[in-house]
């Protein structure tokens, strides 16, 4: 019986026999193998006969003291129950009915079988890289994105202007106002009193100036200069009244 089911027995080094279940992926797979051995359409299969075969297979494996994975034993127990339910007079109280259970098992086997066959047919197709080949060295299609940089001449010179403006060190320049310095006034007044012997109006020493700001500066500077020369004893000052012309003479 073992030969019939392609059961492979391996004799290990320690002389114990193990059942090589690598060939089957679980009890459903084993059932499908057994079912196919009935050599009929899975729709016509005798579930009862299949159950008998499976139980016989398991019994033989156990007689040979082979280790069996738990799920094979669970399936065996379930199939034993199914077998008895199918053989005994039907109890209408029991749901689902044994016929339904049997049909369900049959459908599962059909499905697995269908997918197994579909897989085989897929693998047998003309497969890319095995039977048919794509281009060995495709150049590929390329869209080369070429950036078109945009900048106008105004952008350029404005940027340079901004840069220059930014890089010039911040410097505060007081604008130069027209003034007569004290030194210039001293020299002027000293020179003028040297030329005149009599009293003279200080204002008459001043150069004619159109610039009002300069004139005011000259008045102030020459007044201070007159005071300074008076202090040095080089010049005498006289004023008739407040706001009257300031008269000067060499001391």
């Amino acid at each position, binding site marked *: 019986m073992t030969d019939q089911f392609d059961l492979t027995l391996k004799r290990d080094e320690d002389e114990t026999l193990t059942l090589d279940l690598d060939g089957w992926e679980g009890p459903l797979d084993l059932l499908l193998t057994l079912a196919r051995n009935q050599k009929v359409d899975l729709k016509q299969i005798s579930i009862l006969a299949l159950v008998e075969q499976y139980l016989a297979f398991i019994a033989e494996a156990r007689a040979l003291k082979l280790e069996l994975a738990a799920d094979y034993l669970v399936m065996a127990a379930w199939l034993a129950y199914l077998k008895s339910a199918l053989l005994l007079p039907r109890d209408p109280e029991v749901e689902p009915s044994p*016929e339904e259970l049997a049909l369900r098992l049959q459908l599962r086997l059909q*499905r697995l079988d269908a997918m197994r066959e579909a897989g085989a047919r897929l693998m047998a197709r003309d497969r*890319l890289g095995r039977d048919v080949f794509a281009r060995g060295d*495709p150049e590929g299609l390329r869209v080369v994105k070429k950036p078109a940089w945009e900048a106008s001449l105004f952008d350029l010179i404005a940027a340079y202007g901004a840069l220059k403006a930014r890089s010039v060190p911040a410097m505060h320049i007081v604008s130069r106002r027209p003034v007569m310095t004290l030194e210039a006034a001293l020299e002027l007044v000293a020179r003028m009193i040297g030329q005149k012997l009599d009293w003279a109006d200080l204002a008459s020493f001043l150069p004619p100036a159109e610039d009002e700001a300069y004139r005011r500066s000259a008045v102030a500077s020459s007044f201070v200069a007159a005071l300074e020369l008076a202090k040095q004893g080089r010049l005498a000052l006289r004023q008739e009244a407040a706001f009257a012309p300031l008269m000067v003479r060499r001391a």
Partner: protein
Amino acid sequence: MIDIEVRALEATLFAAEEPMTPHGLAAATGIENVKPALARLAALYEGHGIELVERGGRWRLQTAPDLAHILRREKSEPRKLSRAGIETLAIIAYHEPVSRAEIEAIRGVQISKGTLDALMEAGWIRPAGRREVPGRPLTFATTPAFLDHFGLASRRDLPGIEDLRAAGLLDPIDLVLEQQLEVANPDEGD
């Protein structure tokens, strides 16, 4: 001289690294109506050692299948799938989108993690969203690369898929069970 549209498509598909959609071909060649030009190109290559094929809505040139014996090389052997891998791939292809639990229900065993990983790595399957049922299981579906590799224009070209569907082998088992039980026991209905 062959018409310029056909020549442009031919050169584009020849140079392309991937199968191309009609949209992509139109963008590359500037042809407005690509489909008729593709038909002319396919006709032009009739009987050649190269053929024009459609794979999942994308077009490519490839060698003719009958020349496989010349071209097959040792190094070109595609990745070898385990039996579990082949069955899982078939289940996903014929049932997509399908969850891991559904795959396991059909196969009758748990799938090891490596099985889905290997299919994913091959680029043949992809996660296809979660099913809105308790536990929100992730589902899987095939990719355009799957169709490309197995030479399928679309999933409708999956071998025998129409027969399987007609036989109810792609429907949920409970649905089929119900129908078959009704047929078996027509008097029991109430």
